[in-house]
């Protein structure tokens, strides 16, 4: 019998780590996507995503069900990612240093290898370009692209107005277009 999410949350509120494992299995990839979009570095993203789930478990008694559990979770993730970036400024990640990795990926390519390689390169360049934005600009672009959140929801998560979200998104997109140039 499948246990509802709210039942799992109530079990977690009583300290049941196994119930929490089920919730984590459901959402860890989505949380990781949001954090990776903001941090670019896989190791940093992994650390912040794990910290997100740890903090959420420690504070799960504060979750009263006013929003969905995932909404509550990604708010923690976004705020931790912003905090992480402010504390730890790092340079842009180099493109594929490991040639073996490049070769393995090339072998996996399908019927249109040129397009696939170009798309992958675009993806990497896009992440590198996002990495050069400020934490606030990264947050809006990732929340919009990954979660498809409305400006109102983004504003609520970041503690700013819808107008600010709109102007930050406009600025961030313009910067990304400049950086990516002919790749788009």
């Amino acid at each position, binding site marked *: 019998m499948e246990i509802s999410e709210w039942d799992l949350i109530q079990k977690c509120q009583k300290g049941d780590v196994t119930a929490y494992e089920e919730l984590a299995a459901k959402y860890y990839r989505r949380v990781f996507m949001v954090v990776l979009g903001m941090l670019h570095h896989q190791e940093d993203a992994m650390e912040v995503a794990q910290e997100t789930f740890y903090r959420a*478990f420690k504070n799960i008694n504060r979750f009263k069900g006013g929003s969905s559990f995932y909404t509550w979770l990604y708010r923690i993730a976004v705020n931790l990612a912003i905090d992480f970036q402010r504390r730890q400024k790092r340079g842009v990640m180099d493109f594929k240093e490991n040639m073996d990795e490049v070769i393995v990926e090339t072998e996996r390519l399908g019927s249109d290898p040129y397009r696939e390689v170009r798309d992958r390169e675009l993806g*990497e360049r896009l992440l590198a370009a996002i990495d050069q934005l400020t934490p606030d600009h990264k947050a809006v672009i990732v929340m919009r692209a990954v979660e498809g959140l409305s400006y109102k929801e983004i504003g609520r998560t970041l503690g700013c107005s819808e107008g600010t979200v709109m102007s930050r998104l*406009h600025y961030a997109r313009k910067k990304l277009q400049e950086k990516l140039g002919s790749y788009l």
Partner: protein
Amino acid sequence: MTRDCEEIKSLLGAWLDGELGASEAAEVRLHLQGCASCLGEKARLEKLQSSLKSVLEAKASQLAFEPFWAGVRQRIAEERPWHARLIDWARAVLSPPRLAWAIPAVIIILLAGLSLEQFFPGWRWALNRSNLAAVESIDGHGFNVALLRESKTKTTVIWLFENHEGEEETSAEPVSGGPAF
């Protein structure tokens, strides 16, 4: 025409996000029907959005749950030191939106505290009870102890005297032992 295009391009992102009002959205839609340049901009914005989502999805799909959960579980199992928890708490409490309320609130409380004397003259007296001489007495080691403390002059007098109540019952002689300082 160029100016119009610039204005339309500045609205394209919000239009694609479905965040424009009905009239502005209709204006953008109408413009796009006859403007190749803005259509190209729209296509670039769409590609930007879809590329970001697909690259993140591809990377996230490679992440296995077991190692991820092992890290979370380890954190849960470890009891964080009190100072780390204090820092976490302070970060949560002193987040910018709360801080914006907290600073004026602290100022108001301070001002209210400083102006209390005007509304409740003599209220400090209750707090400055330590200025009065306080006498405490403790029984210990066969002596009675009297303690006289006067904080204004920072004087403490300890008065030790023997308990002769029992002796008085057996001896008719007056007690000769005075207080010992």
